[in-house]
């Protein structure tokens, strides 16, 4: 009689833990599945996550905008959003690559302006440098 009662208690406990943990585990599993398949990250992705090609094009556009409006604080903030470790070297390197590849002159001028503003200049940029004011 006592044995039967003990067996019943064990069975009840097992059943109780099953009914407790099974739904919990199933819920966690489902949550992970949904969370990783439908991530919220998509809605918070910044420019630092862009593909390198798009990053380069982004910098070109920032250069174009800078040529148009001359607004350096805005241009700088847009570049910083890329979260590049060494921004002058990155923009300068991109500028030199564009010059070497003979890309669009307007794009190169914008990039050179950004490079100069960031304090990065090199001899290949010389032809694209904005004109100097006499005595300047």
């Amino acid at each position, binding site marked *: 009689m006592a044995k039967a009662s003990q067996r019943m208690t064990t069975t009840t406990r097992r059943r109780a833990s099953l009914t407790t943990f099974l739904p919990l585990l199933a819920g966690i599993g*489902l*949550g992970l599945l949904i969370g990783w398949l439908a991530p919220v990250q998509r809605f918070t992705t910044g420019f630092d996550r862009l593909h390198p090609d798009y990053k380069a094009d*982004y910098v070109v556009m920032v250069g174009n905008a800078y040529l148009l409006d001359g*607004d350096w604080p805005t241009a700088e903030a847009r570049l910083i959003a890329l979260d590049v470790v060494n921004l002058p070297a990155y923009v300068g390197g991109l500028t030199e690559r564009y010059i070497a590849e003979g890309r669009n002159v307007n794009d190169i001028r914008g990039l050179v302006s950004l490079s100069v503003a960031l304090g990065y200049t090199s001899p290949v940029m010389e032809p694209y440098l904005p*004109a100097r004011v006499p005595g300047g």
Partner: protein
Amino acid sequence: MVTRHVRRPRTSRTFPFGALLLGVVGLTVGLGYAWFVNPVEYVDVEPAQLADEEQRTYLILVSLGYASDGDLSRARQRLAAMGLDDDPGAALAEVADEAATLGLADTSVRALTNLALALGGEPELAMPFAGTLAGPPALPPSPVPGTVFAPTVAPSATPTPPPATPTPPAEGTITPSPTPSGNRYVLADQASFCDADVTPGLLIVSVQDANGDGVPGVEIVAKWEGGQDSFFTGLKPEQGPGYADFVMMEGLSYSVEIVEDGDTESRVVSDLQTGLCTPEDSTEAHLQGYRLLFRQTR
């Protein structure tokens, strides 16, 4: 002692609220972990996957890029990367209106409006911003000591690519207007054109010196009933240093003046009527444009 086990019939078993509650708790824990503790991190994304705010900034940059190089196909490609390959004009018009409402920088609103118009969009609130980006020619400040930017177009080491937008005038009258005496510039040519590939209602102004070379930094004022706007040559270096353009609105009559030594009264050409026309290679009506050429007198 007799123990009686009374089994309830299955049908009367209560709903497992406890299990459901635990399931919901588990789901919450799982979602919380997957979204906030250990979220999926995207790398090498396309512009279409950027956050909303970044997408707006990207759109402004695409518009400014178009304002800078006038390359519509390139702007289209950039917009396609943002997933805006289906009617990008309408999407841009919406953003331009929003930008106008939010009071963003004039340059950004103008750029968005112009690109929206070029892509067939119809901005409403932002429409007054349509036209060439006004302001001095490229004058980026120089945070680096020793480098001073001058309002001239920098020399180019490589050949400038051919202009993307302008096409030869297809039709219209070439009737140079009489120029008031004392002006340094005379109207050398005037023509209307109808081209589906060109921004509707585009007014193209070329300013040349006596040798026929483009002159940058010349201020031009377009006036219409109830308004006026000024724009400058040389803001689109790839089109030539003496190039400037302005987008006219349908149904208005414009006069165009060149400002010389601050004199805004030197009217040069008037009665530029904007009307619809049908381009040769299209069946859809298009807003005609004008091309004006001013040349400096010796």
